[in-house]
């Protein structure tokens, strides 16, 4: 190697090193940022409000949600979320948490469908009762293992439909869920993308939703997470708490089986 190419080579090595360094120190600092934020999660405020709403009697029937059957019997909240979505014999279909909540608000509390799905996602000055209820209910499964059933044929169907949805490439940008979520260690900008086909990633992701999103100042549910993915995927808007979303959630939840539930969490 002559002197000239040696110099070039050295410069190249230094540059590559500083590059690698810049990248790893950026991600280190971002992990530090997340750690600092984890201390004091505003989602707790949603959990508190959700618990009040769960127990609050409201018109027209003047009953609370305390008799709502989330799958483990009327009124059982503890551990309900880690077994959802699931088959419900009273409606003969598979429901996720939010679909079930809508059902309980309609049948138990007597709300119309419009009332029951009103403000599914909150915004400034327009907070969502649903997000608060979801925060409360999910918090009651913290520390438990994901244990989603696929024994019932309809549960299996829901999973398979969700799987087809996950791989469905369409629209102007040719995106599917899989475009961003089927390879390890990928990032969009600096945001890490979980590989939802990889057990550990799928568990880590599913068990940390819902979450307080610092970018939005709200607790966001799984339905919101999926809606926002679909928006960026250049897909039209899914109807809130619909069967297709339940199917997709079923696919993701089942892939996360065995993961220890740890939400509402806090995310960017």
């Amino acid at each position, binding site marked *: 190697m002559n002197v000239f190419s040696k110099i070039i080579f050295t410069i190249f090595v230094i540059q590559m090193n500083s590059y690698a360094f810049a990248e790893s120190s950026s991600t280190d600092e971002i992990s530090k940022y997340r750690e600092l934020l984890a201390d004091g999660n505003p989602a707790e405020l949603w959990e508190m409000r959700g618990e009040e709403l769960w127990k609050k009697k409201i018109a027209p029937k003047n009953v609370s949600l305390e008799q709502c059957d989330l799958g483990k019997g009327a009124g059982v909240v503890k551990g309900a979320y880690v077994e959802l979505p699931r088959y419900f014999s009273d409606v003969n279909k598979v429901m996720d948490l939010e679909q079930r909540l809508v059902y309980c608000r309609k049948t138990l509390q007597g709300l119309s469908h419009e009332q029951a799905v009103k403000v599914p996602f909150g915004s400034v000055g327009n907070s969502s009762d649903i997000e608060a209820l979801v925060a409360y209910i999910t918090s009651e499964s913290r520390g438990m293992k994901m244990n989603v059933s696929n024994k019932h044929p309809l549960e299996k169907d829901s999973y398979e439909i969700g799987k087809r949805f996950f791989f*469905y*490439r*369409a629209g*102007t940008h040719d995106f*599917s869920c899989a475009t961003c979520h*089927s390879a390890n260690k990928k990032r969009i900008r*600096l945001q890490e993308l979980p590989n939802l086909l990889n057990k550990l990633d799928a568990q880590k992701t599913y068990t940390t939703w819902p979450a307080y999103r610092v970018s939005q100042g709200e607790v966001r549910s799984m339905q919101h997470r999926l809606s926002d993915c679909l928006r960026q995927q250049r*897909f*039209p808007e899914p109807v809130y708490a619909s*069967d297709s979303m339940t199917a997709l959630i079923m696919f993701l939840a089942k892939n996360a089986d065995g993961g220890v539930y740890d939400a509402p969490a806090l995310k960017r």
Partner: protein
Amino acid sequence: MKKMLMGLLVSIIITGCATAAIKTDYGQTMLTLLKSEFISKGPATVERVLSQDEVQKICSKYPVERPEKMAALIQDSQMKTVKYPSDGIYIGDWKNGEKIAQNGRGFQSSDPLGGVNGGNCYACHNITKSEISYGNIGPSLYNYVKAHGSSEQVIKYTWAKIYNSQAYTDCSSMPRFGHSGILDEQQIKDVMALLLDPASPVNQ
């Protein structure tokens, strides 16, 4: 409609259990749900996502790998879609190219109809030294000219790659920017400049 479908589903399963002959067509059920449970909003329409082209169909069915024949079919058919610049000029303004690379808007349900689309290149690629917030789904494009040169062949390849990525890589994650009408000819020229202009920060 939905109820009917679910009813149908149930009956299929019941008969399926009995005869083990009829299997639920999950893909078809998914499409029916997509049609009935999604609402067009802004530039993101139900019709658009329901009308998959052949490429999208194959890539949905074979997300990871596909038979060689299909791969070749995709690449050949997509290469034929590439339209090179009408005036023979490939390189525009790298400063506009940088703006396009930074902009992630266009065709989302939250975007306006007829708005200016971005390329969102930084979402997946390292491009310039000054932007530290870049993704890694695609390869680094920093020092593009140093890595690839700037021969006519490279220029044409780069154009075609941006215009229709699947001309070279079947089922690439990269959108087919020209073919799908995301970026117009001038915008592609500007992105080309970002990669190939010696004055662009990519090559500094």
